[in-house]
């Protein structure tokens, strides 16, 4: 039994390792994925900074940086989840599907790998924002914020996998980016405070899982939260488990 469990872990590990190796080897992917957050951080962080200050809200860069970290993670992890489509196109998925392992193991290993890659990107963006002038209030909370990053990454990698399992080819990808990923990001409070929003918008924000991720990161890094860290943590964990379940189910139905 112990040997069997070891083997199960080994399968998940090798699938995880594959994703991480692929990421570390493609330098263009690393650099490409960092261009956008850097631009957002500099253009918005410094561009809106003075207005934010005048409105009495303090330092905008401090406020924005956790939001940009969350943005990097949601973009990368949904894309990583959707890599299933590429693997199906390039045939590699079949290689894993005819192996004597369960689909759940495959899905879980991939998701963990994709989420790790997204978390690494999040950490790099955190480092960049430190260079840009961001200063966390609680340095000792930084490792905990990495845990939150991993949970956000797992949540959206699982969502990406679930979506990819439903799509036949990459043509639906643009649709998902514009009608799902962008709204999830812009309506999450990553760029603006949630306090005092019009009621309709505030309600939408409440239904966006990323809002809780952004809020948790802010709570950890700059000690400001809207929902409270406990609420954030519970919502994130519950939704992550739900999406992992949906993702595994959709993945188990993939036909090649």
């Amino acid at each position, binding site marked *: 039994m112990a040997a069997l469990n070891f083997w199960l872990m080994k399968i998940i590990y090798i699938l995880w390792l594959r994703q991480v190796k692929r990421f570390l080897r493609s330098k263009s992917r690393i650099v490409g994925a960092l261009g956008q957050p850097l631009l957002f951080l500099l253009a918005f962080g410094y561009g809106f900074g003075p207005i934010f200050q005048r409105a009495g809200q303090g330092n905008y860069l401090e406020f924005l940086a956790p939001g940009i970290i969350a943005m990097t993670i949601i973009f990368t992890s949904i894309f990583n989840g959707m890599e299933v489509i590429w693997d199906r196109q390039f045939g590699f998925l079949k290689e894993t599907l005819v192996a*004597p392992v369960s689909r759940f193991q495959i899905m879980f290993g991939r998701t963990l790998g994709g989420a790790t890659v997204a978390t690494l990107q999040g950490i790099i963006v955190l480092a960049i924002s430190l260079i840009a002038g961001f200063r966390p209030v609680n340095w000792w909370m930084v490792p905990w914020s990495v845990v939150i990053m991993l949970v956000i990454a797992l949540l959206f990698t699982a969502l990406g996998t679930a979506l990819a399992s439903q799509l036949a*080819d*990459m043509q639906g990808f643009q649709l998902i980016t514009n009608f799902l990923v962008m709204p999830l990001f812009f309506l999450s409070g990553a760029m603006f405070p949630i306090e005092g929003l019009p009621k309709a918008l505030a309600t939408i924000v409440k239904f966006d899982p990323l809002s809780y991720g952004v809020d948790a990161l802010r709570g950890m890094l700059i000690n400001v939260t809207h929902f409270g860290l406990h609420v954030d943590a519970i919502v994130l964990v519950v939704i992550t488990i739900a999406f992992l379940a949906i993702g595994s189910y959709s993945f188990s139905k993939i*036909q090649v």
Partner: protein
Amino acid sequence: MNIIEVIDLNKKFGGFTAVDNINFTVAKGEIFAFLGPNGAGKSTTIKMLTTLLHPTKGRIQLNGHDPVKDSSAVRKSFGIVFQDPSLDDELTAYENMDFHGVLYGMPVQLRRERIEQLLKFVELWDRRNNLVKEFSGGMKRRLEVARGLMHHPKILFLDEPTLGLDPQTRNHIWTYLKNLNQQENITVFFTTHYMAEAEQIAQRIAVIDHGKIVATGTTAELQQRTGTRSLEEAFLKLTGDTIREESSTPMDRMRMGRRMWRR
């Protein structure tokens, strides 16, 4: 002893019958060619044999196991080389082999030995640390054959393994497979559109058309039955000479897209 037994196998997609109550057997250690025009039901049958699709009706025994009820045992019994490349381009040849070995539960020492043996066998040992994306089409194919053999399967499935390869590479691949068949008594089940290959390599042939098996036997038997002098003529006589048009699936469109993108 039969290593593959297919009994009244049937697969329907909605109202369309892709495989229509077929029966055939493959003996242990045999080199078996499964021939048919495009859309005849070859790929659907292979997918059912390899646990990727569930039959609508009928039964399959592969190495004594049922692919539906005991997919894990069936999956350990066969290796497969798919029609499309299925390697990870971003990994090295060695890593692709090792990944496969781990998936099939092989211990590390055995993996090391087997990878060395097989990569030497397909003459890729010197390139083991190169990324697969630097490989030519022929090298990728050889690596896939080696990978399919990694876990000591009893049966090796090859779906058009020589498609798009030059005659030299094709010749090499068939030489490997013949040697393997003789040395390790592996059953080889393959499809091809090159009739000359089937004629040279296969000990027995089944021809499928419109989801039905229209003939089985040796090349000589098929020629005799149709009164022809080559397998190609026999094949055309059995399946007619009209061109089969398949409607393109999203998968085909993606394949086309890939061809545009890659070189």
